[in-house]
Structures are given as C-alpha cells and as structure tokens.
C-alpha cells in the first residue's frame, strides 16, 4: 500500500554473465523492510549470483539495484557494508586457519595507536566476539579456536554471527541451513526470528520449502536466471512452490 520507502531492496532487470555462461537474464525482485524475503529455485537458477550482485561481490552487467529507495553501484563488498548490508555466503567465506574471532573481525579489526604504529586490539576483539556469540546463543565453542576445527553447524554459526554482528539493517543468507542437521537448523531459524524481531530485514535463499513456509513473509521463485514468480507466503502452499520451481506450473498458464 505504502510507497517505495518501506522497500529495503529493489532489484530491477539485473543481468550477469560469466564468459559465455549467462547466470542472470534480467532478474527483478524486491524485499520489504522488516520482513523475511525468501528466494527459491533449482540449482543453477542464479540465486547465488543475484545475491552476490547485491552484496557487492559481483558487479552486475546491467539493471538497477536500489537500497532503501536509492540506486547503488557497489564496487566491492565494502560498499555494500557501508549501506548496512551483510552477507552470509553459501561457502561461508571463512578463512579456515584463522580463529573464530579473527574471522568475525576480518577487515574490521579494532586497532589502537596512530599509523604506522597501529596495532590490533586482540584482547578486546576476543572479548567482544565471545560476548556476541554468547548473546546470540549460537553453538560456537571458544572463539580462539581455528575455524578449521569446528563442525559444519558451528562454522555456519560463526558466519551468521559475523553478519548479524555487523548489521542490524539487512542480512542476506545464502542457503544457511543446507549443510545442517535438524537441531542446528532449528537454532539458525530461531536466530533469524530473533534478528527479525529486533528489526533486521532478511533475504534468505533456501532449498527447503517447509523452511520458506515457516520463516518468510514473501517468496520469489527463480528459474533460468530470471525471477519467474513472487507471492506473499501466506497466500501459497508448499506444493504450489514446488511446482513453480520445477517449472511444472508453467504449463497451466
């Protein structure tokens, strides 16, 4: 009903090719502020590429991206961060041989002293990372452990904690529960609900239709590099979505 101001994100006709592979053929979708917006689609549909364009990892070849109503051109993930966008990548983007706290603070280290004597405040970063992990009640062990030594669920929790710590505006998650067991999936979903309660907008890519039905307010369906459909989640069933993802529904139109 209201204008475009309550749209956190608007993606219009975004295209992206890698050599002769066209990953996005003009994708259009939007995400409302304060909601959970889901993207579903088969493998290779272009979901990850789309969110990498929004997170500043890729520069789109064409189209427009607006954040809170303003057009943006991200040259690097740092630009997206400056607009309050944090991303949990599908591969998590963790440096395995660094510790949990070093990953949480990677490229945002707390420092003291004037250049060139600027040194990292290791103790402060450790303490804050520990506090964060405790507050989020996520299943992360000692923050001094190297990421390499964590389980899949713990690594996921580290990546999500990092995103949530640095933005309370907009968090994008690419298949955050794909590698997790039942209990860990529940923990991640509970965390998503908590950050939405505190006012963070969430854009989530998921393969799990039930999860999309449980968590999201809006769902977009991608196929072949395009967004082929969008619904208020309350107005569709999981079965409808399955049909749309596989393309079976196309025949009905």
């Amino acid at each position, binding site marked *: 009903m209201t204008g475009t101001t309550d749209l956190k994100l608007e993606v219009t006709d975004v295209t992206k090719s890698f050599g002769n592979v066209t990953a996005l053929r003009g994708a259009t979708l939007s995400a409302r502020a304060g909601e959970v917006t889901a993207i579903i689609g088969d493998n290779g549909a272009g979901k990850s590429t789309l969110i990498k364009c929004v*997170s*500043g*990892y890729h520069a789109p070849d064409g189209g427009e991206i607006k954040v809170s109503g303003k057009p943006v051109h991200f040259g*690097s*993930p*740092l630009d997206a*961060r400056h607009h309050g966008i944090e*991303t949990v*990548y599908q*591969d*998590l*983007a*963790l*440096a*395995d*041989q*660094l510790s949990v706290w*070093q990953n949480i603070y*990677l*490229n945002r*280290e707390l*420092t003291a002293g004037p250049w060139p004597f*600027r*040194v*990292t405040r*290791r103790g402060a970063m450790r303490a804050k990372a520990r506090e964060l992990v*405790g*507050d989020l*009640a*996520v*299943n992360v*062990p*000692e923050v001094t452990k190297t990421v*390499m030594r964590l389980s899949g669920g713990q690594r996921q929790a580290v990546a999500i904690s990092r995103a949530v710590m640095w933005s309370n505006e907009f968090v994008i998650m690419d298949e955050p529960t794909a590698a997790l067991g039942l209990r860990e999936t529940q923990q991640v979903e509970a965390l998503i609900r908590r950050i939405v309660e505190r006012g963070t907008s969430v854009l989530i890519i998921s393969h799990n239709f039930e999860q999309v039905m449980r968590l999201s307010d809006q769902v977009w369906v991608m196929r072949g590099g395009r967004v082929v459909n969008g619904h208020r989640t309350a107005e569709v069933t999981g079965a409808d979505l399955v049909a749309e993802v596989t393309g079976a529904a196309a025949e009905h139109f």
Partner: protein
Amino acid sequence: MTTTESPRKEASSVSSNDESSRGTLARVLTSQEFWTRAAAPVALAVAFVAFSIAAPNFFTAVNINGMLADAAIPILLAVGMTFAVMLAGIDLSQASTLAFASVLFGIAYGAGWGLLLSFLVAVAVGVGVGVLNGFFVGIVRIPDMISTLGTMGLMMGLSLIISRGIPEPVSDPVLRTIASDSLGPFRWNFLIVLMIVIVLHVLLTHTPLGTHLLAVGDSMDASKAMGLRVSRIKIIGYVIAGLMAGLAAVALILYVGSTQPAANTDYVLKAVAATVLGGTSLFGGRATVWGPALGALLLTVLQTGMIMIGVEAFYEQAVIGIVVLAAATLMRGRK
C-alpha cells in the same frame, strides 16, 4: 542463555578423563599441529646438544656468536620468503635480487654516494623486484613459480651485465663495525637481524595487515567477500620478501667486504627449507616469523657443526635438500 553445556569441557573431558595425563602428553607429542610449531626449536636443541658432544669447540662463545652472525643472511631471506609462502606463493628471485642489489649498492658506494644512500639503493632494488613479483602474481595472475622465475632470470642477467661479473670491494668503517663488533655478547649484525625479525613478528601478529596476509593465503574467495583488496595484499607480501633480499645484500656486503654479482642459488633452497622447517604451510594461510628464523638458524648450526665434526662441505647441499623434503612431508597438512 539457551547455550546449554559448555562445549569446551565436553570435548576434552570425554576423551581424557579416563586416560592419564601421560596419554594427553603422548597425543600432543604425536600431533601434527604440535610438530609444525616445535620442529625447528626441538631440532635446533637436539643439533646443539649433539654437536656440543661431538665437537669440543662447538659449544664456545666464539663459535656460538660466529654462528649467529653467519645466520644473519639466511634468517633475513627465510623470514622474507615466509611472506611469499604464507600467500600460498614462493619467491624464487630472492638470490638474484640480492645479487643485483649488492651490485647497485657497490656502484652507488663507489660513486661516492655514501653509506646511507647506497643502502637505500639496495632497499629500493628489493622493494622494486617485490612490486614486480607482486604485480605479476597478484594482478596479471601468472603462477608465482613462473613470475618469480622470470624476475630471477632478469635480475641475475642485469647484475651480470652491469657488473661484468666482477665483485667490487666495499670497505666502510660502519659496515666493518656492524660485521665484527659486539654489543654485550652479540655481534651487531645478529642484533640488527633480530630487531628486523621482531618488527616482522609484530607486523604479522599484531597488525590488520598481518591477519589480511594470512587470510588471503588461506582463501582468496573469503578474503574478497570480506572486502579485502587481494591483489594489493599479495603485492605487499612480495614486497616484504624482496625487501628482505635487499637487506640481505647489505648484510652480505658487510660480511664478505665486497659485492656479489653472481647469484648464489643455495640461498633460495635454504630460505625455503627454513620456511618449511618453521612450520609455514606451503598451501598458505599459516605462518610465524620466529619459526622460519629458528629454521634458518638450525640450518646454519647444521652446516657449521658438520664442518666441525669433519664432514666435507660438499655434503651440505644434499643435507639441506633432505631436510626440505623431510620437513615438507611431515608438515604437508590438509587442504
């Protein structure tokens, strides 16, 4: 809040409660993680004790100080090499960079530029080659072996062309003092190298750049996703490697009293050996500065000790080669 049991305790108590502390010790002593850190110091201690027993003149102040001074160049090159290897790279050009820097130092000094300017010339050569290596590895994206092999040939050729292959004597009172005088029990050149090692240690462990170098070596994708400027960080790593080669050129001149136009390629072998011995992951992302420094010291101790117990100098290369292979096998790690 909802975090249940502390997972820290869980993991250790399940496995170690019923076993004795000897079991824990045994596990530590057989773990790869322990040996990647401890190989250099433990081997150094063993070599020290063994040679002290085998050679009567080994454990004397004169010999120990001599070895520390001898280790100056290998340590500089090893810690420099470490900054390329932690990026999952290598710098094969170090020895010829050293040669070229020494030649230009000699020319500058011979032309009456004075010690400080000549020193800066050598430093500039090191930095320049580092930028070149970093440019080809990080921006043109040629594999590190090929990039640094190319600059190796280039620098080796340039130093021979310019010098006609003839060493120039350099006799400077300050350099002589650094080479042979001591402060307390230690020779100046060792103390200066020790200071450089400490500075690089602080850089690696207590600055954002240090973490970023390790992150890029660990995962370029993750680093890019976190907004790190990967190419720039690679260039910085290679610049540090080159800079150490430039400083090593000065260390060599004050050590032998002349320039050295012909690249001594043993230096690269030794630097790689020390880097691996020091627990640096050849796949990048894991490194210390003190490990390779101790590794270089160990190689110097082995070399001196072998000579003192009467092993022919010809064996030295073969021994270092074996040490590289053994250490790399022990520490080949995951990934």
